[in-house]
């Protein structure tokens, strides 16, 4: 069985493949703005999680500001809905 990928790795892979952001810059304390993750890119990342884990993200989720906040949010949703 394929190992379940952790949320930080998914975010790192996404940012590397789409935005050419080096994985070592994607640290929990890194601000999403500093990684060129705007609202559109954030929507794309969330869509990636929805697709991978068949999640449904509520439209009025509070937008995370850092990679760490995004990881916590995704982990929580995966645990609730997974």
């Amino acid at each position, binding site marked *: 069985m394929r190992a379940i990928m952790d949320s930080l790795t998914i975010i790192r892979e996404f940012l590397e*493949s*789409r935005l*050419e952001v080096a994985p070592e810059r994607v640290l929990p304390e890194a601000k999403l703005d500093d990684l*060129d993750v705007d609202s*559109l890119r954030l*929507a*794309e990342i969330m*869509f990636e999680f*929805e*697709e991978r884990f068949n999640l449904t993200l509520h439209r009025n989720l509070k937008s995370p500001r850092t990679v760490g906040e995004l990881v916590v949010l995704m982990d929580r949703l995966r645990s609730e809905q997974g």
Partner: protein
Amino acid sequence: MTRRRVAVTGLGLVSPYGGDPGDFFDRLLAGESAIRFLRTDDVPRPLAMPFVSCAGFSADAVLGRALAGTLDRFAQLGLAAAFAAWDDAGFPRQAAGLDRESWGVAWGTALGGTLAYEKGYRDLWQRGRERLSPLSLILGLNNAANAHISIQLGLGGVSMTHTVACASSAIAIGEAFRRVRSGEAPVMVSGGSDAPQAYAVARAWESLRVLASGDEDEAPQCCRPFSVDRSGLVLGEGGAALVLEDWNHAVARGARIHGEMVGYGTSCDHSHLVRPDAAGQARALAAALADAGLAPGDIDYVNAHGTATPEGDPVEVAALRAAFGDRAARLPVSATKSLHGHQLGAAGAVEAIVTVLALCEQALPPTAHLADLDPDCAGVDHVLAARRGQTLRAALSNSFAFGGSNAVLAFRAVA
């Protein structure tokens, strides 16, 4: 109102031959066809038709992966062409510290982000998916090309898309020309781009029975404007851009001037959606001449719309005969779509570049594969082989669209 002179200071292309306008023009002079046979893996029935692809174009390489990933193919082609024209004009891409708040963009596309929406339909209806990527809407915007050009080059003035079928980019260039001539904008980026390899679009063109037929061997020679055995046009993708600039602005900064844009004429046939009308086209030709302050005897070349459809070609020649009178028989005319195909919304810009380069190089590219002239297309001086060493003072580029919308652009050689 004081009319400013308008210089063409930048030319940019994404073409099947590559991105170098000089090389592009040389290949047309050499009669080198870019038309190839396309076979896709589409289901339920692959596309199989003559087509023109910009196979050597890598959006990731030219634009960077992050930017390219947010653009549909037509916008990638457009932004790359605009960048090339901008670089050619000698402007820095970075706008920081520069005032470009009145500089603008006028872009043409017939299909816009059709490919993006088509992918969405396939995902939903063919692959059974229930939701689409949030990028889908952004990719599908028909004004994505002009918006990205404005953003990337920091242009704060007008930013518009003109969708007028096959005259889209000719009209965009004409509207840009008017804004520079009036003094509203000192610099405008204009042109067009299209990517017509969408499955439904290609199938729709097939159904209209206006596409040239030909197999893998025949494809390069299958588009034969004005020929008695012509069978239609060849769809192609591409992007083309011109930088139009206030003449004094260009001279003051020491810019290289490729040519002068001197006139723009438009008209509507107002008679039929797809059956062209010579009287309507002749009105656009006369309007362009009048706008340019030129007489028929001043024009030394016309780049024809010349799609090679049975119905369209004789009507265009009839319009030229009507507008040019006695001059028509000595008027050099060629249809370069026989070589580079029909880029739909980008065609007017591609052919405007051909026209400017003809004046620059004092050379005329031919209508290829015209061995047997249709008598109904006689009455002008068809350019059958490249002519070099010409004396070309001024030239026109014709774009006549479905819908009966006609646009004619006039350029003058720089002395």
